[in-house]
């Protein structure tokens, strides 16, 4: 537990629920609100804009049939997936694939949606997206192994190789951010920054934190096998690669899990480097003094999600303007470019921080 009340707990207490009951009820309620009120709508929104933006950038027609301007396309896709015949009648496989997606959501409690949302803030919070990323990777590996063909096995191993090589620079960048903030909890990172872009982490200890931000984002995309580094998952090998086993409901679950981990990673980047959920000081003081905790939670959520969506759309812009990279090119990139840059960012940030501390004790 974070030690301070989240907004759901306060709401329940204000509604007359006893404090102990409110404390226990607030956690599942907050998780449900996070999943159904934040993650699912985000998945819908991102799915629509990714296709729309991708089509416009590539001079294609794009979604325009389902609803006005194709707004209902993600819903149409979801309903289509539910109706598709599965490729392999594997009930056991389907059950553990559901379990795998549920395991990904074990980190929802530490999703950095705002100061009043953190259900379990701790120094380990920044490491949980890595846990989700590795669960996703291992699940995809097992999907490839289940395929029972050489392309499936090789595809799964390629996927893991890419993820492992990208994890190192990502972790080093988190250390670099921690060197700046002198701590690894979400709150520490957020309090170290403010609403003004000039005080964002990415511009601090210039240029080392900016390098760390760039390397963190790119290595995250490689770690999660997200575009444009999704060759291992995106390609359809002859006679079935890793993801060709998945269709229909299985594919919907798998893609939802992938989106959740991607969202978690982007939110992590926003909190570490782009000011997090910080509001303008005057607005924050007003909301706090008037005890408008629900409005405060909503505004912080809007800020962090808004920044996150802008980063996501930026990733889409770059991904749709470039071809996919081959897996060995991605591993090469991780070892020979991202890792050295991450180390430069870490050493530079630590040295800068020490010098600053010596000059201004």
């Amino acid at each position: 537990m974070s030690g301070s009340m989240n907004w759901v707990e306060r709401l329940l207490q204000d509604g007359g629920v006893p404090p102990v009951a409110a404390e226990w009820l607030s956690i599942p309620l907050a998780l449900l609100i996070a999943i159904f009120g934040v993650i699912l709508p985000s998945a819908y929104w991102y799915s629509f804009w990714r296709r729309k933006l991708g089509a416009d950038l590539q001079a294609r027609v794009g979604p325009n049939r389902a609803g006005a301007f194709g707004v209902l396309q993600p819903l149409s896709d979801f309903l289509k997936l539910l109706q598709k015949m599965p490729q392999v009648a594997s009930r056991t496989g389907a059950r553990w694939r559901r379990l795998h997606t549920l395991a990904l959501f074990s980190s929802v409690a530490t999703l950095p949606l705002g100061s009043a949302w953190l259900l379990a803030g701790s120094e380990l919070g920044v490491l949980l997206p890595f846990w989700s990323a590795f669960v996703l990777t291992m699940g995809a590996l097992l999907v490839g192994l289940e395929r029972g063909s050489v392309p499936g096995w090789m595809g799964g191993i390629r996927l893991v190789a890419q993820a492992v090589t990208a994890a190192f620079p990502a972790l080093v960048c988190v250390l670099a951010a921690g060197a700046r903030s002198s701590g690894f909890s979400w709150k520490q990172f957020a309090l170290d920054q403010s609403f003004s872009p000039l005080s964002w982490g990415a511009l601090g200890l210039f240029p080392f934190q900016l390098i760390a931000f760039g390397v963190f984002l790119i290595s995250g995309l490689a770690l999660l096998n997200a575009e444009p580094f999704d060759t291992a998952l995106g390609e359809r090998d002859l006679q079935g690669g890793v993801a060709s086993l998945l269709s229909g409901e299985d594919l919907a679950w798998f893609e939802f899990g992938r989106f959740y981990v991607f969202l978690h990673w982007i939110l992590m980047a926003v909190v570490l480097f782009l000011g997090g959920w910080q509001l303008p000081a005057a607005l924050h003081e007003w909301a706090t003094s008037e005890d408008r905790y629900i409005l405060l939670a909503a505004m912080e959520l809007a800020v962090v999600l808004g920044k996150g969506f802008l980063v996501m759309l930026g990733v889409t812009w770059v991904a749709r303007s470039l071809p996919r990279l081959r897996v060995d090119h991605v591993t090469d990139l991780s070892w020979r470019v991202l890792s050295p840059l991450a180390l430069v960012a870490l050493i530079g940030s630590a040295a800068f921080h020490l010098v600053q501390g010596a000059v201004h004790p």
Partner: protein
Amino acid sequence: MNATVSASVFSAVWAFCLRLWRALRSIALACFTTLPYLFRWGDRRREATEQYPDPISSRTAEDLPPRTRGLLFNDIDRCTGCRECERICPTRAIHINTEPGANNNKLWVSTFDIDFARCIFCGLCTEVCEPASLTHTRQFEGAAYDRRDLVAGFGRGQVTEEQRAKWAALRRMTDLEEGGGE
């Protein structure tokens, strides 16, 4: 020696930075090439693709290029059942069953199934087909709601035991006539 080492380290770092700069510039150029299409700047107003099926300029099968590799068709009357197409198919999409027919020179192709869920339309099967019975059509609309509907059957069908026995007898007669003639 130290100066040489320092120079080589410096040049390696400089080369790294130069390559990084060129890569970033290349990515930026790619991104700013696509940006005008997003905002329809200049003459980039129309999409390069068409809505399918486009009522204004809809394309039919006849509009397609001559060597289009559409859905496969097997003329079973010309097919000899040699199974070369089955052997060469990289996805094992073709399944053939044959048995001896009335004539020693021709097999009865009872089953000739093509699973279009597996077919990748590479055209290898049509290239190895000597009688040229297996060809690509220009049909491209092969979607189905049920996976079983994606299997196209061109075989002549299973024969009964009686028919099989008649054919065996016919073949024996032919063998005797040919043997007696020699």
